[in-house]
């Protein structure tokens, strides 16, 4: 058990106060002559043992009340021994360790990470059970169950080291259940160390109900103890590389990157100047960036010189309380021509799109009814009109999943949404053609200028989207990521991620009566950017999240080019190289999510399991704050109540035959 106000323990000598008062009280007795001595002597003889016991109890209750008051004021947190003292040693203790990237944030003392702090607490508390219980480790990165020879070996295990992966707690509990059913320990205690990141716990996932039923059905004696670790840093930033585009037709000797810096600034500031360390293939330069509150997009071009082969970059912000999110990696492939395929129902649209795409590279146009060329030869496919068949839909989806880019434009006529298109567009549904009559909706007022096809130019100029006129559009539903919207909120451009690729959907056409996109001031840069973005998804230069790639995808002899020494591409972020293949791994985006599971959500997810919380010390306000002062307050009140009951005058003894001062009557013998 730990205390938030240990200074209060200086008041512990006050425990002697009731005893001192009692002794002083005994010394200050007054003399009194007495006639009815025989009754006094008899009362003293018969009541002495009972009175002494009562006196002792009264004194004990007073001392206890002062002790409990001291403990109450010291603000105790439920901790190790308080939990353990009520339970005997279990047969096995499973240590479930969160090794996700967010656990590398600094703990309260600022020297250790949350993961290291959790390991220390584990090791410290497990010593009480060393030799009496089996210790088993289950970590979030490998999800392997590993039996420990001794708790002393815990800190030296490779399976407790830092990773840049995300944790999948429902899956970990599944692994725990499987192990429990196989190993069949008599009584099991599970110690869970986590920062309660919501994206890792997914409390609303229905799998919890299933797990709960399985635990209940297995008849296991399991107690869960949850060690909550919270990092409460303020004024910290996280860095993420969204896009790295290698040499292209537009700039053959430069690499472009787009990075996003998120976080809050020091209180009262709206912008600060910071230093961004950019490492291009091993040569590092520091660049000054101005960071705004919330998020800041950083786009830069780096000169490659003569070396236009594949390579890597790493970006770093100055370290803060969460060092794990201050570095990001990116890779790019060798210069390659941009190839685009245009498939359009309307010839005029097809011609316009082909011309626009040729500004970024080569473009080939075919009719929808014609036989399609091999899609893998194209980085960008622009499709206008209905998807003719399921086969074509599957081929397009496969192309996107492998990292391709697909721009989808609607048909000129009202058509039924085909199943193929619905499946391809990941739930996005064409609803109807809408002739825009509302003048307020004629314009596009807001769009994403930070990234995507409508982003600002490198010089900082906005695309003339506001000057573009619209007369007709398709209404779509199910769009999750709208990059540009009409004034009435209807999407103009939406983006869906499918596998490693992306599908863009635009709801109007570059035709007279539909819009003035055909003038080219918006359409040409939009398509050029799509082509460039597609180039960044080079087969030999892949960017992904740590822990996301399968073993098959990671086959090869990967060498660490940047990142932690001895990094493992399965779990560590960094840049890896295998011959001509480049691989950049970053921590999952969900690890930057600061949302935590609330107490209600946690109770809802774990309600069927016997668990209690166990807090790391030095918490700030948290729904799981383990202050147990209420218990001490209640105990103190109970002690005082008991003491009050002890000193309460007992039922008055009635002496018959005596008169009261007002009714003075004498007894008369019959």
């Amino acid at each position, binding site marked *: 058990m730990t205390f938030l106000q240990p200074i209060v323990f200086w008041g512990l000598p006050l425990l002697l106060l009731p005893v001192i008062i009692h002794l002083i*009280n*005994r010394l*200050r*007795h*007054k*003399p*009194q*002559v*007495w*006639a*009815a*001595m*025989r*009754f*006094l*002597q*008899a*009362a*003293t003889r*018969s*009541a002495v043992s009972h*009175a002494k016991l*009562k*006196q002792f109890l009264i004194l004990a209750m007073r001392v206890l009340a002062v002790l409990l008051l001291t403990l109450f004021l010291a603000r105790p947190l439920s901790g190790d021994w308080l939990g353990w003292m009520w339970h005997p040693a279990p047969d096995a203790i499973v240590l479930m360790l969160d090794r996700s990237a967010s656990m590398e944030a600094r703990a309260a003392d600022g020297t250790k990470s949350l993961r290291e702090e959790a390991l220390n607490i584990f090791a410290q508390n497990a010593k009480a059970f060393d030799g009496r219980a089996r210790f088993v480790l289950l970590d979030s990165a490998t999800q392997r169950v590993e039996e420990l020879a001794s708790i002393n070996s815990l800190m030296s295990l490779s399976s407790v080291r830092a990773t840049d992966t995300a944790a999948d707690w429902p899956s970990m509990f599944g692994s725990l259940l499987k192990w429990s059913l196989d190993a069949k320990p008599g009584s099991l205690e599970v110690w869970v160390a986590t920062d309660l990141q919501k994206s890792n716990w997914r409390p609303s996932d229905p799998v919890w109900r299933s797990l709960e039923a399985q635990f209940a059905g297995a008849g296991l004696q399991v107690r869960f103890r949850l060690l909550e670790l919270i990092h409460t840093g303020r004024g910290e930033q996280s860095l993420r590389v969204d896009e790295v585009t290698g040499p292209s037709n537009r700039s053959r000797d430069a690499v472009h990157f787009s990075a996003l810096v998120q976080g809050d600034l020091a209180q009262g500031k709206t912008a600060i100047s910071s230093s961004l360390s950019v490492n291009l293939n091993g040569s590092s330069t520091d660049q000054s960036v101005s960071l705004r509150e919330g998020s800041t997009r950083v786009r830069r071009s780096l000169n490659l010189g003569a070396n236009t082969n594949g390579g890597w970059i790493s970006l770093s912000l100055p370290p803060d309380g969460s060092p794990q999110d201050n570095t990001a990696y990116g890779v790019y492939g060798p210069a390659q021509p941009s190839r685009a395929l245009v498939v359009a129902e309307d010839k005029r649209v097809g011609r316009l799109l082909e011309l626009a795409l040729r500004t970024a590279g080569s473009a080939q146009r075919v009719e929808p009814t014609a036989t399609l060329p091999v899609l893998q030869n194209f980085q960008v496919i622009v499709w206008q009109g209905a998807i003719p068949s399921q086969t074509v839909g599957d081929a397009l989806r496969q192309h996107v999943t492998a990292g391709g880019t697909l721009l989808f434009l609607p048909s000129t006529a009202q058509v039924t949404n085909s199943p193929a298109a619905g499946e391809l567009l990941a739930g996005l549904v064409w609803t109807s053609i809408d002739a825009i009559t509302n003048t307020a909706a004629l314009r596009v007022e807001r769009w994403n200028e930070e990234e995507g096809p409508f982003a600002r130019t490198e010089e900082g100029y906005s695309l003339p989207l506001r000057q573009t006129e619209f007369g007709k559009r398709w209404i779509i539903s199910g769009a999750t990521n709208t990059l540009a919207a009409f004034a009435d909120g209807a999407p103009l451009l939406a983006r869906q991620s499918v596998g490693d690729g992306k599908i863009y959907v635009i709801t109007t056409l570059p035709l007279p009566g539909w819009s003035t996109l055909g003038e080219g001031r918006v359409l040409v840069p939009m398509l050029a950017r799509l082509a460039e973005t597609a180039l960044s998804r080079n087969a030999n230069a892949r960017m992904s999240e740590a822990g996301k790639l399968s073993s098959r995808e990671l086959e090869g002899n990967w060498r660490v080019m940047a990142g932690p020494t001895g990094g493992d591409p399965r779990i560590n972020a960094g840049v890896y190289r295998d011959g001509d293949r480049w691989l950049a791994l970053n921590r999952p985006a969900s690890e930057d999510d600061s949302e935590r599971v609330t107490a209600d959500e946690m109770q809802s997810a774990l309600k069927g399991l016997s668990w209690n919380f166990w807090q790391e010390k030095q918490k700030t306000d948290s729904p799981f704050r383990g202050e147990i002062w209420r218990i001490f307050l209640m105990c103190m009140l109970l002690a005082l109540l008991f003491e009050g009951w002890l*000193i309460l005058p*007992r039922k*008055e*003894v*009635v*002496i*018959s*035959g*005596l*008169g009261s*001062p007002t009714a*003075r*009557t*004498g*007894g*008369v*013998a*019959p």
Partner: protein
Amino acid sequence: MSESLASKYLDSAVLSRLMAQPLLTTMAMQGTVSGLHRSPHKGSSVEFAEYRNYAPGDDLRRLDWRVFARTDRFFLKEFEAETNLRCHLVLDGSGSMAFSYKTNPAKFDYARRLVATFAYLLVHQGDAAGLTICSRTPPPEIPPKRTPSHVQLILESIDTATAEGETLVVKELHAMAERIRPRAMVVVISDFFCDLEELVGAVQHLRFKKHDVVMLQLLDRQEVEFKFDHPVRFQDLESSTSIVAEPQLIREEYLRQLSLFQDSLRQKASEMRVDLRTFMTDEPIEKAASGLLLARAQLATAG
């Protein structure tokens, strides 16, 4: 009668009110002159008692000739004899009687005023009053007499008496039972803080001698309430014993012991047909005395 002593122990206003009700006895008394009380002998009062057959030697003047005329048999008509009583007032002069708490009078002072009041009333109603003080250095016993000057003797005796030493009531009651003539009234004024069995033995001795025994118990309010708010060193008034105690802790047991004693005392008094009355020293003498007088009158009438 000395004015100073009389004013010290007697209240003329109280006495004038109390004189309306004589102190009566429930038993037949053997007096020396005629009085208010029933005698064991038949006499010539106006109160008819019974008829009995004539026996040779009887006074022929007491024959009822009307009955002889009707029945041709000789009957004597007998009347109740009424006599005065001899009342022995016994005052406990032990140390425990000196107890007083705060503004309450000492039990001994209260007892002295009771003795003076009853002595005056008895003499005033034509009965004889005597005084025996049970103490370590008792003044001479005053035998019962019915002269008004006798009250002065009693007042002088109680005025010189002090309450000290252990209780000698039991011993004195036994001595009185042997010493005084039967059929007298014995009024014992004490707190009766002594061995109950011994006390009962002494009272039974008096009852065996056909005395009408009245026990007046005096207690202080603090003795029956035992309310202290601090530890106390209790010093015995009759010995050198002392006890340091926390009254709050032993109060319940003390009161239980006192209650047991009182219940036993009342039980024994009832068995011995002895009139036991308990007075608190914080109640007026008049109220205590008038209560006793009225109760005695009712008992006498009923008997």
